[in-house]
């Protein structure tokens, strides 16, 4: 009888533990998932003329993101920004983004990432005259990548390549996508931006990541508590068998829960 009571009590506790641990695991996973952005892409092989795959006033088709494109035209060095906090080979620097006017696009400006520049270096001027550029086509960077709580940046600096933000700085018309220049190779001190990986998983939101870890810790703590309860229960039962310190430790429960020691008797 008492054994059955004990067993059912522990069964209930174990079920509660399972629920709590699953909830913590799930909530932690959910937060962790929110903290990351995964980008998987598989653009077609080969180099396409830019205007064949992306035109002003249109979004970059998803399957063309990361596609290598070729574009002819000229830089408009009056319209230039630097994108802050860009890492390359473990070093912090900026991307230099200059407006490029492709021939045949009726004056629409295409943001071109000319290269990566180590922090603090002076920006070299964009080349004059007709250029032929081969690079990777990218879509405007999502606002979700913005660091929350960052103050306004000095003029000429941006946090990410957002077509909406560039529109207000550069005036329309503007391409929605942008190109990361691969060829011709940028001249020093500019460094060619590394080719974008086809699958990228990055933690972009440390707050959510911290919440995720916290949920998992709560789950582990619940297990720890449960194990400790079992051990204390065992010790109590052993003490009871000894017949020592039997009743003296039992205090009446204010909350009405029956102590396992009483059940044992």
């Amino acid at each position: 009888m008492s054994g059955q009571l004990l067993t059912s009590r522990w069964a209930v506790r174990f079920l509660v533990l399972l629920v709590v641990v699953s909830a913590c695991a799930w909530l932690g996973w959910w937060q962790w998932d929110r903290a990351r952005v995964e980008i998987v892409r598989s653009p077609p092989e080969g180099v396409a003329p830019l205007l064949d795959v992306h035109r002003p006033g249109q979004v970059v088709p998803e399957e063309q993101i990361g596609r290598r494109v070729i574009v002819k035209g000229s830089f408009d060095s009056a319209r230039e920004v630097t994108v802050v906090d860009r890492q390359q080979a473990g070093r912090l620097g900026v991307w230099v983004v200059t407006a490029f006017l492709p021939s045949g696009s009726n004056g629409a400006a295409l943001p071109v990432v000319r290269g990566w520049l180590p922090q603090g270096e002076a920006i070299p001027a964009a080349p004059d005259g007709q250029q032929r550029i081969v690079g990777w086509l990218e879509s405007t960077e999502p606002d979700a990548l913005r660091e929350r709580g960052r103050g306004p940046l000095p003029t000429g600096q941006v946090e990410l390549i957002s077509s909406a933000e560039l529109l207000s700085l550069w005036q329309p018309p503007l391409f929605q996508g942008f190109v990361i220049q691969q060829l011709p190779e940028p001249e020093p001190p500019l460094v060619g931006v590394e080719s974008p990986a086809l699958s990228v998983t990055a933690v972009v939101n440390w707050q959510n990541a911290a919440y995720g870890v916290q949920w998992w810790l709560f789950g582990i703590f619940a297990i720890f508590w449960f194990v400790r309860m079992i051990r204390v229960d065992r010790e109590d039962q052993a003490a009871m068998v000894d017949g020592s310190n039997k009743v003296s430790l039992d205090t009446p429960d204010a909350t009405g829960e029956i102590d396992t020691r009483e059940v044992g008797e």
Partner: protein
Amino acid sequence: MTEGASQDKAVESALMRFRIMAWTTGIGLLLLCLNMYLRYVQDVTTVLDVVPRIHGFVYMLYLVTVFDLSFRLKWPLSKGVLVCLAGTIPFLSFVAEHRIARETHADLTAS
């Protein structure tokens, strides 16, 4: 007799740890609410933005002190869980801290 005294002492210090963490958690929780108000209602960013990131870990420490105290005082599970939950409701952690401290002191002097 001496064993009892040293046990009392251990309970005293466990209680003190619990009280410190209850106050820290309580204050942290109020700061968290203030941060939420500033961030989502007023839409301003302040130094309080670090609070959400660390509060969970502070609460974790609070749980550990509750855990410690609850086994020393042989609380029923439900009481331990309720005291843990009290740490998540603004102002309730202060009430819980006060009651637990009074109750434990009463028990210690009685025994």
